[in-house]
């Protein structure tokens, strides 16, 4: 030990720091800081990027004390099921306290990436004014802000490189936020406002694009017509990533012909998305750039027919990431399988949530893809039906899955051919895919599938369960078997107190556990909270008037509708609303 210490002391801190610079993974840096005090110290002061998977696991003060020189922060707020309306509005996940604390401590913040957080205009304004070197803002599935907040960012962040808004709920005040980028702003590299509903000043956008010569990624919103797209492409043929706005026009018009020519000149586009409101007959305009595309997202375009989709896809031989709607059909997936030999990630979203039509894909499409695309490692597949035989074939064809998410439109549909549960199929997947880190199961499932998951899914970090299992045994198999489990979310499944309380220490090795419409009682949750002080066990009632009253009348023997527990270093949160009770 002494010899080691003295050898290490030969290296001045700058050298250590330089060596640590090569460590980019958070896990590696965390490991390094455990070696000895001097490494801890050097790492602490040289850490620039911090990832916090649950904003309530720590607090801003501790973050700043631990990493005083941080420049880049990733924060995640609400539990995943909040995306599907299972978490009441106003549950929490506010970013303001973080921005306020960092501003007070003069953190030199340059990058902020937020997911499922509540971002107020006030926080955006504070952000814009407090960090002179701020460069990059990425908001995913957030809410709480309006275009006024965006205007503050545009006006004040002199060196802004990236403004990326993905699937947020933004209150569009139809202001001129885009016009707030000053004429002196030439630093933009990436601008994505596809999720905004309101109009933007097209002329201001064209001028902005013209002066930002480093612009590589641009995603327009629905309100911008084809004419504007055409003008922009003429100004910015260097784009790598393009999100069209609306893509509908008379294919015989001069504008459209000009667009086709502009597209031909965009030799660098590798990623294409948008097509919000599209006329299928306009799609051929993008054929010239399809050959080099590695990413294609057509999942916001329910108006494109299957044959138009497949005609387009036949041009896309180098696609690695494809997001589409189930309007493509099984046959269309067959075309993908024959054409896209480089495919790594496929997402097939449902197009028909309201029962208007019949478009859907089945197990056939999935099998075709698994047979034709040897590099496939990540899938999200919404389908009408599934069979064990198909899943077993898929498992054989694709042992390299890292992420496997299957979602049957009817949550408890059995094997379409045999009427059996889908246990064997998912069992084959976990047995074959030894590197699987994320899994979502659906369809009719018994405890058996969880036995398989516990036995084989050794690398599993995130598991989503809905309407599955028969008894506590199911949940126990998972808790006992999956050593690397970080996030477990369960809804509408018959798991109860016995499973919840069997291994309480397990939850400190995980980020969080969500259970809704299960069989756990208030008493059991209280027991858990008492025994495990470093967990926050939240009971969430519906956010209706008088919810506090209703919940107060809950007896220990009553079932809890929604429970969310997570490990934390800072005790119960202080911003919990009435309908959230931390035990």
């Amino acid at each position, binding site marked *: 030990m002494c010899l080691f210490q003295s050898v290490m002391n030969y290296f001045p801190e700058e050298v250590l720091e330089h060596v640590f610079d090569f460590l980019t993974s958070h896990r590696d840096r965390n490991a390094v800081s455990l070696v000895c005090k001097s490494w801890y110290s050097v790492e602490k002061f040289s850490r620039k990027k911090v990832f916090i998977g649950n904003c309530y696991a720590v607090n801003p003060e501790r973050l700043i004390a631990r990493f005083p020189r941080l420049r880049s922060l990733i924060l995640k707020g609400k539990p995943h099921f909040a995306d*599907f309306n299972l978490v009441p509005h106003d549950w929490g996940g506010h970013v303001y306290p973080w921005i306020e604390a960092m501003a007070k401590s003069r953190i030199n913040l340059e990058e902020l990436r937020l997911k499922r957080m509540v971002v107020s205009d006030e926080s955006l304004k504070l952000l814009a004014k407090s960090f002179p070197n701020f460069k990059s803002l990425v908001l995913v*599935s957030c809410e709480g802000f309006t275009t006024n907040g965006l205007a503050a960012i545009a006006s004040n962040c002199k060196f802004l490189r990236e403004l990326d808004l993905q699937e947020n709920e933004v209150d569009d005040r139809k202001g001129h936020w885009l016009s707030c980028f000053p004429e002196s702003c030439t630093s933009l590299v990436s601008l994505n406002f596809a999720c905004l509903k309101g109009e933007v000043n097209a002329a201001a956008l064209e001028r902005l694009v013209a002066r930002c010569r480093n612009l590589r990624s641009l995603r327009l919103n629905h309100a911008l017509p084809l004419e504007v797209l055409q003008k922009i492409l003429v100004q910015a043929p260097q784009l790598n990533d393009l999100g069209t706005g609306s893509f509908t026009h008379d294919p015989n018009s001069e504008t459209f012909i000009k667009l086709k020519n502009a597209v031909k000149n965009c030799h660098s586009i590798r990623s294409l998305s948008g097509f919000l409101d599209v006329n299928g007959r306009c799609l051929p305009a993008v054929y010239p750039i399809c050959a080099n595309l590695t990413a294609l997202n057509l999942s916001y375009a329910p108006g494109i027919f299957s044959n138009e989709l497949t005609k387009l896809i036949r041009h896309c031989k180098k696609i690695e990431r494809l997001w589409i709607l189930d309007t493509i059909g099984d046959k269309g997936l067959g075309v993908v399988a024959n054409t896209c030999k480089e495919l790594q990630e496929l997402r097939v979203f449902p197009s028909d*949530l*309201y029962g208007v039509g019949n478009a859907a894909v089945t197990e056939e499409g999935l099998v075709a893809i698994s047979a034709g695309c040897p590099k496939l490692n990540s899938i999200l597949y919404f389908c009408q039906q599934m069979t064990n035989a198909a899943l077993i074939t898929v498992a054989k064809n694709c042992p390299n899955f890292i992420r496997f998410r299957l979602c049957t439109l009817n*949550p408890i549909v059995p094997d379409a051919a045999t009427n059996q549960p889908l246990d064997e199929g998912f069992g084959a997947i976990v047995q074959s895919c030894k590197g699987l880190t994320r899994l979502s199961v659906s369809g009719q499932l018994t405890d058996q599938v969880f036995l398989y998951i516990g036995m084989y899914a050794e690398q599993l970090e995130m598991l989503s369960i*809905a309407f599955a299992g028969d008894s506590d*045994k199911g949940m126990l198999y998972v808790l006992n078997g999956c050593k690397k489990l970080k996030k477990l979310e369960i809804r*509408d499944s*018959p798991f109860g107190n016995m499973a919840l309380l069997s291994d309480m220490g397990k939850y400190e090795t995980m980020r969080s556990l969500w259970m809704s419409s299960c069989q756990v009682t208030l008493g059991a949750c209280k027991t858990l909270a008492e025994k495990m002080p470093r967990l926050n066990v939240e009971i969430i009632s519906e956010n209706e008037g008088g919810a506090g009253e209703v919940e107060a009348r809950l007896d220990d023997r009553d079932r809890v509708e929604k429970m969310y527990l997570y490990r934390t270093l800072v005790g119960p949160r202080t911003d919990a609303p009435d309908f959230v009770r931390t035990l």
Partner: protein
Amino acid sequence: METSVATELRLGLPGRDRSEAKIISVSNKRSSSEMDDSCDPQQESVVPAQKAQVVGWPPVRSYRKNILQKKAESSSDGSAMFVKVSMDGAPYLRKIDLKFYTNYLDLLKALQSMFKCTIGVYSEREGYDGSEFAPTYEDKDGDWMLVGDVPWEMFVTSCKRMRIMKGSEARGLGCL
């Protein structure tokens, strides 16, 4: 005790007890559909609820749901739907894309602006009675119908062309 029930061996379809939990979590609009408690394991799969009536299923983000909802409301096929619109006394016809609009109000506003006329307010009993002009359309059967009677989606799919009639002529259509 819930736990002993949960681990009890039974011959029923898996998930028999889940029906209770499911109903609690489902929105009020859903009619109660207790799971079939027949002991026959070969039973046809039970459907717990119609699509989109189980809260949060299928699991898609609201952003995506909103996009699909707009599309579902406005059209059953994707391409534009241009129909000819004539107005009594106008020298030439116009064409509008019905898919561009999502409701009657927007359509009528657009027509009034395009033809510089006033169409007035629709009522089920009086049609556009009292207005200078009344909008009519030819449906798939070749009949001339008053705009506004049927739900919007039905109108969009059945409308072949439109004619803005002089109010005096339209009175015959309006009073039934």
